[in-house]
């Protein structure tokens, strides 16, 4: 099943979150948006987070090296990292073509849903991207 970008939530820092109920827990799948991937231009390395780490919304969880810059990745949600997409770091060339399915980075079991309220819906995120040029 393919993920629809219109149904995702977005951080201003360009990470997306797909929140679902799994066995009574809220699990957010996290990645970076197509806009971000295009702006970053040719990702060459990605530092993946560790399973079990607790994150607070807005906290740095990884880093990417693109053409001539290292940039941080920020968690859009608070909770515990329960799964990491281990194949992604070695397959960054596929990220551009498939940012919302193959491009997921980690799954976070939410500890606090309040951070979801500050995320943008698709329309608001698109507006932010168009203002950024």
């Amino acid at each position: 099943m393919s993920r629809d970008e219109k149904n995702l939530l977005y951080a201003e820092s360009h990470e997306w979150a797909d929140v679902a109920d799994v066995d009574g827990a809220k699990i957010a799948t996290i990645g970076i948006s197509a806009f971000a991937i295009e702006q970053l231009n040719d990702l060459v390395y990605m530092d993946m987070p560790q399973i079990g780490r607790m994150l607070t919304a807005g906290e740095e969880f990884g880093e990417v090296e693109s053409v001539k810059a290292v940039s941080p990745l920020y968690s859009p949600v608070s909770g515990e990292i329960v799964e990491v997409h281990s194949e992604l770091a070695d397959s960054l060339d596929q990220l551009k073509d498939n940012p919302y399915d193959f491009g997921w980075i980690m799954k976070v079991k939410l500890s606090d849903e309040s951070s979801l309220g500050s995320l943008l819906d698709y329309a608001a995120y698109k507006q932010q991207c168009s203002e950024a040029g």
Partner: protein
Amino acid sequence: MAIDQAILESEYPGPTLRFYGWSAPTLSLGYFQKLGDRSLHAESRELTVVRRSTGGGAIVHDRELTYSLVVPLQSQAKLFQSASNLGAVPELYEAVHQSVIDALVEFGVHATLHKDSLAIENQNAPIETPEPFLCFQRRSEWDLTVSGYKVLGSAQRRVRGKILQHGSLLLGASNFAPQLPGVGNFGRVQPTPAKVAASILNKLEARLGVHWSAETLSNKEQELSTAVQKSRFADPDWTARR
């Protein structure tokens, strides 16, 4: 480099430029490079090694000038108005590297941006993979070259609203990287680090529209740099993390 990081993480609102040398010849790895790959370069094998926070290839810091520039993007909003909040800020590469081009003219060296020295059809040539171990054997569009040799390479690290740009200008060929000539091999005046730094500082002042003043680190920056040095650059685990 710990001081650079401390300035990046401090709340100082304006741009900060530093020039420095190294107390002993040192190999710095790009942030994502593997420590084991230093065996690819035999001449620098005996040197002390550190891992930078910026990416790119390894640098032999010996007969060179290192600079760091921290810029809160808001402080230079006019210059960086087209900069997105992601990835590299090419305007900053351009400002620094054009300043270095102008400065080197005073030493009789005519450097060009790599992107200007290439035929258009070659600019989109695929990047060699894996890329060479040494920064100065890699090429990207903002690098400065003289007679085809790269003499200045820079790399950026972003944090929220701020950017750190590190760079290295080769002044001469090092015994630990004899395959890489520096600007002193091409000019009519032997450039000293102090003279080159003074000239770059002046040129960059005009390009960034700032007035530099000599400052010392605040107590907070000093404390932070000590902590960063301990937890990162002087920590063998940081160096060996990849």
